C-alpha cells in the first residue's frame, strides 16, 4: 500500500493516488489501518484500482452527502454508473433517485416509518425482544448472530411489513445481493448476482399489493397509491426498498452492538446500571462499527471539494466508517463509549438520502439491548468470531457467546 502523489491524466494534480482496494478480502478483515491511510493522505484521494475518487474524512463525507445536486444518486450509489451500464435490477425509486422524483417517494416512506408509527409498534417489538431473551437464557450458550442478531429482526420485521410466512428465507440472501452489488465487479458481486434469480423472484412477488397483509408497512405504502402520492407501478418498488434495506442492516446493527458490549464489559456494566443508556449504546455501535461502510455518488458537474477538482461524471466513494472514526471530528474515536454524544455520525448517512428506516433500527436496537441488560449479568465470547464478507456491509457470520443470567 502506498500513498504517493503521482499526477496522472485521470485525476487532477495534487490529489494523492492510492493503490488501496477497499473491496478486497484482506481489507475487510481489518479496514482500520487503511481507513487511517485514506484519511491522512488528503481530504480527497484517488483510488487507481477502481478509478474513483474517495473521501474518508468526516467533513468531506458530510459535505458530499449534503450536496445531492452535485453528488447525485440517480447514476447509482455503487461503482456501476447507470448512465454507462445497465443496472443489475430496476433502479430504486428512492435510493437511486434525485430530487424532484426522490422527494415524492421519500415523503411516502417517511410517513410509513414515522415517529408516530414507531409508537404504535413499540410494545410489539418490546414483547418480541423479551421473548427472544427468555429463549436465550434457556440456552445459555448460543451464536449471537444467528440466534439473536438475525433471529430477533426476523421475528418482527417481516410481520411488521406484512409478508407471507412462506419464503422468508430469501430475505437475508436478497439483501446480501443488494449490498454486494454496490461494489465493484469482484467475485463477491459477480457470484451474488449470478445466484440472485430466485431471491429476486420472491421479492418481486412479495411486493405486490395482494401479497401484503393489511395494516403492515407494505400495505401502508400501497395505500398511498389511493391518495395519488405514488402510482400503482411505483408502490411495489418502494416496498422492495424496505425488503432490501430493512433487515440485513438491522441484523448487522444489532450484531455490532452485541459484539461491542461483549468486548467491552465496562460498557455492559454501565448499561446494566442505567437502562436508559440502551438507545445510546445502540447508536454508538452504529458509529463504532458502521454496519453500512460505504456508498458512492456521481458528480453532475465539475466541482471543487476541499481544494481538489473533480470532473463531471466521476464516481466518488464515501467511507462512512472512516468518517465515523475521524479524529478531526470525534474525541477518542476508537473507543466504544455508550454515553458519547453521537449526533452527527454518518452511520445512517446524512441529508436527503439518510436512512429512511433509522427509527425502526433504533427502536429494535433499544428494546433488544434493554431486554438483554435487564436479565443478563454477563456476556462472554467463547470462540473465535467469524466475519461475513460483503462489499458494503460489515458484520459477523457467527459470534459464539455464553451468558450468565442476572
Amino acid at each position, binding site marked *: 500500500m502506498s500513498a504517493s502523489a503521482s499526477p496522472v491524466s485521470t485525476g487532477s494534480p495534487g490529489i494523492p493516488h492510492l493503490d488501496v482496494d477497499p473491496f478486497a478480502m484482506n481489507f475487510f478483515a481489518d479496514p482500520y489501518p487503511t481507513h487511517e491511510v485514506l484519511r491522512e493522505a488528503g481530504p480527497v484521494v484517488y483510488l487507481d484500482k477502481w478509478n474513483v475518487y474517495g473521501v474518508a474524512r468526516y467533513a468531506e463525507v458530510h459535505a458530499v452527502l449534503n450536496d445531492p445536486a452535485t453528488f447525485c444518486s440517480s447514476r447509482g450509489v455503487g461503482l456501476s454508473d447507470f448512465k454507462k451500464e445497465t443496472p443489475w435490477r430496476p433502479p430504486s425509486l428512492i435510493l437511486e433517485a434525485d430530487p424532484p422524483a426522490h422527494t415524492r417517494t421519500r415523503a411516502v416512506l417517511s410517513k410509513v416509518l*414515522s415517529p*408516530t408509527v414507531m409508537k404504535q409498534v413499540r410494545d410489539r417489538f418490546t414483547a418480541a425482544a423479551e421473548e427472544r431473551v427468555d429463549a436465550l437464557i434457556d440456552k445459555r450458550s448460543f451464536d449471537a448472530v444467528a440466534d439473536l442478531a438475525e433471529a430477533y429482526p426476523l421475528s418482527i420485521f417481516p410481520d411488521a411489513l406484512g409478508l407471507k410466512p412462506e419464503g422468508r428465507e430469501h430475505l437475508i440472501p436478497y439483501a446480501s445481493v443488494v449490498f454486494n452489488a454496490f461494489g465493484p465487479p469482484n467475485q463477491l458481486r459477480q457470484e451474488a448476482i449470478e445466484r440472485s434469480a430466485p431471491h429476486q423472484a420472491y421479492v418481486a412477488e412479495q411486493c405486490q399489493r395482494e401479497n401484503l397483509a393489511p395494516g403492515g408497512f407494505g400495505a401502508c405504502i400501497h395505500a398511498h397509491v389511493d391518495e395519488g402520492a405514488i402510482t400503482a407501478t411505483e408502490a411495489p418498488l418502494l416496498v422492495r426498498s424496505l425488503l432490501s434495506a430493512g433487515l440485513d442492516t438491522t441484523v448487522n446493527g444489532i450484531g455490532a452492538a452485541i459484539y461491542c458490549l461483549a468486548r467491552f464489559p465496562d460498557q455492559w456494566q454501565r448499561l446494566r446500571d442505567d437502562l436508559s443508556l440502551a438507545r445510546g449504546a445502540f447508536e454508538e455501535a452504529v458509529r463504532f462499527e458502521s454496519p453500512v461502510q460505504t456508498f458512492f455518488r456521481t458528480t453532475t458537474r465539475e466541482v471543487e471539494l476541499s481544494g481538489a477538482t473533480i470532473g463531471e461524471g466521476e464516481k466518488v466513494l464515501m467511507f462512512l466508517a472512516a468518517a465515523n472514526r475521524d479524529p478531526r471530528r470525534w474525541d477518542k474515536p476508537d473507543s466504544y463509549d455508550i454515553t458519547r454524544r453521537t*449526533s*452527527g455520525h454518518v452511520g*445512517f448517512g*446524512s441529508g436527503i438520502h*439518510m436512512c429512511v428506516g433509522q427509527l425502526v433500527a433504533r427502536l429494535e436496537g433499544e428494546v433488544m439491548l434493554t431486554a438483554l441488560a435487564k436479565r443478563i449479568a454477563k456476556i462472554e465470547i467463547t470462540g473465535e468470531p467469524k466475519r461475513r464478507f460483503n462489499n458494503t456491509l460489515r458484520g459477523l457470520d457467527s459470534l459464539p457467546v455464553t451468558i450468565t443470567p442476572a
Partner: protein
Amino acid sequence: MPAITFIHSDGKSDRVETGDGESAMQAATRHGLDGILAECGGNAMCATCHVYVDESWLARLPAMADDEDALLDGAAAERSPASRLSCQIVITPDLDGLVLRLPERQV
C-alpha cells in the same frame, strides 16, 4: 453572534452563543446541552430535538414545513401549539434572545 436561552424541564437555564447560520439544535449540541438528543443530526427525521418556543417568540419564527409538522405528532413528550423541532430553527440576528423550553424527554 446571537445568543439563545434553553430552559430545562427542571427550570434551570443555559444561554448559548450561536454560530453563523447554525440551527438552535446545532448550537445546543455544540455546547453539550442535555435535553436535545438530535439522533438524526438535523435532517428532520427523528423528532428528538423537540422544544417549546416561548410564547412571546412563537409568531416571530418562520412557519413550519409539513414534514416538521408530521414529525412533531410523534415526539416523545406531549405536543403543544408551541412545539417545534429545534433543528429547523435557524438562528438569524433577529432571533437574538430567543427562549426555548426543553421537554422532559426526547425518546
